[in-house]
C-alpha cells in the first residue's frame, strides 16, 4: 500500500470540512446516544459521498440511501447491468443434470459458485453495487475501499482530537491508542465513552 497521495489528502480535507459542518448543524441536545451515533454516521457518509463527487457510482447510492427524500434520480439501472434472468440457476443446473447423467461437482464449479456467492455479498456491501456488473463492481469496490479508508482515518483523528480537548468536564475516557485495523472491530463493543452518559 502506498502512502496517501495528494488527492487523498484533498479528499480528506474536503471530507473533514463537510463532516464538521454537518456535525455543527445538527442539534444534538435532544437525542439519545443511538440517535446521535446515527446522526454522526450519516453525516460522515454524506460528507464522504459529496466530497467524492461524481467520479464513481457509489456516492449517489450512498446519498440516496442516507437521505429519506431521494432528490436524485434513484433507483436507476445501468444499461449494461440490467439483466433479467428468466430462469434461475437451479433450473439451469437441473436441466443440465438431466441431460448430463453425471452430477459430480467439479472443483471449477465449486470455485465458480463461491465466486458468485461472494460477488453477491460484495454487491450488498458496496453502495450501488446491485446495479453493476462484475468488472465495474470491482472497480467501484476499489474506489470505495480507498475512500472508506480515508474516512476512517479522518474520523479517528477527529475523535482523538475531541477526546484530547481541554475541557472542564471530567472526561473519564481512556483514550485508546490507535489499534491496528483488524482488532478495532472487536473494540467496538467497549465503548467506554458510554460511561459518560
Amino acid at each position, binding site marked *: 500500500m502506498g502512502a496517501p497521495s495528494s488527492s487523498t489528502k484533498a479528499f480528506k480535507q474536503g471530507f473533514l*470540512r463537510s463532516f464538521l459542518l454537518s456535525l455543527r448543524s445538527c442539534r444534538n441536545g435532544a437525542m439519545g446516544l443511538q440517535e446521535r451515533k446515527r446522526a454522526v454516521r450519516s453525516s460522515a457518509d454524506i460528507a464522504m459521498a459529496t466530497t467524492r463527487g461524481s467520479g464513481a457510482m457509489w456516492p449517489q447510492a450512498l446519498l440516496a440511501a442516507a437521505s429519506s427524500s431521494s432528490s436524485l434520480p434513484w433507483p436507476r439501472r445501468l444499461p449494461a447491468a440490467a439483466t433479467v434472468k428468466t430462469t434461475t440457476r437451479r433450473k439451469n443446473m437441473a436441466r443440465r443434470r438431466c441431460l448430463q447423467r453425471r452430477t459430480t461437482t467439479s472443483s471449477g464449479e465449486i470455485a465458480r459458485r463461491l465466486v458468485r456467492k461472494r460477488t453477491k455479498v460484495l454487491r450488498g456491501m458496496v453502495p450501488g453495487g446491485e446495479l453493476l456488473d462484475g468488472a465495474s463492481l470491482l472497480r467501484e469496490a476499489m474506489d470505495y475501499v480507498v475512500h472508506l479508508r480515508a474516512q476512517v482515518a479522518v474520523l479517528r483523528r477527529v475523535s482523538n482530537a475531541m477526546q484530547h480537548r481541554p475541557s472542564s468536564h471530567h472526561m473519564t475516557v481512556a483514550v485508546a491508542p490507535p489499534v491496528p485495523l483488524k482488532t478495532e472491530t472487536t473494540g467496538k463493543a467497549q465503548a467506554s465513552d458510554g460511561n459518560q452518559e
Partner: protein
Amino acid sequence: MRHPSPPPELPAAGGEIQAMAPASAAGSSSTGGSTGGSFTALLGLPTSQAIELLLPGAAPAPAPAFPSDPHLVDRAARFSAFASPSPSPTPPPPASAGKRKADPASKGKVAKKGKTTAAGGEEKDSGEDEKPAYVHVRARRGQATDSHSLAERARREKINARMELLKELVPGCSKVSGTALVLEEIINHVQSLQRQVEYLSMRLAAVNPRVDFGGLDNLLGTECGRITGLNCKSGMDLEQVSWPDMGVHGARNLAQLQQQFWHGDLAHPQQAASPWEKRGDVQPPVFSNTSSSLFGYDLASSASRGPRPLSLSLPR
C-alpha cells in the same frame, strides 16, 4: 487524454512504436510475467504505478474527484473487446469496429510493435493498443477465435486485471491466489472498515454532548490555514483563514487544540508522519463536483464567505 490527435491507423507500426515505446517500455519489458497478454499496460506496470493510475493520486488535477478516471476508462476500453463507447475521435474502420473479427487477414492488419501475424498467430497478445477507441485482441495460438469466446476472454481478462489491482489494495491479499479467496479478503476488509466507521461514530457521539461544537471551528481553521508542522502560532492566521465568521476562542485554546490534534496524529503507528503536515499548499482544497451537494451550497466558494447564512439540517 493521452492522445489529443487521432492516432494514425497504419498497419506499419513504425510511428506507433515510438509512440508506444515511452508509454509501455516498462510494461512490455515485464510482459513475460503477465498472464494476460493484452494487459501489459496495467499488469506489467510496477505495483505502485498501477495503484497510482487507479487511485486518485497521480493526476495533477487538484480535484478530489477521480482524476485518473479517464485513464482508467482508457485502459478499460483497451481491455474490453467491446469497443468504443469511449470518446474516440477516430472513426473506427468498418472492419475492426466493435468486436474483433477473427479472421487471419484482419489479424495481420494490426501490427503492434512491428510484429505482424501474417506468418501465423503464434505470438501471444502482447499488443498494447494506444488507440482509445477499440481493442485489437489477437487470439492466442490454439485458442478459439470466434467472437463469443474472444469477448468472453476479454471480459475475463478485464476482471482479472481489476482483481490484481484489488489484491494490491487490500492488505494481506498478495499471497492469496484464486478469485474466491481474494474476494473473501476484500469482503472482510470492507466489513472491517465499515465497522470501524460505526465504532468511531459511536465514540464521537458519546463525546458529543459535552463538547462545544464551536470549538471545532478551530479545528477547521487549523486545517484551512497554514499547517506548518506543529507550529502553534496560527492564532493570528485565523483572521486570514477562510472561516472568519467562526468564533475564535483565543489563540491559546487554538494552539492547544492544534497541538492535541496533531499529537493524536503522531501517536498513530500507521501514519508515521502526518501527511497533512507536508502540505505546503495554502489553498483550501478544491471541491469539484460538489455543486450538487446535499448541503445546498457550494463548498468551493465557502472560502470567501462564511457559513453563517447556511442552515443545515441533517437529513433524517
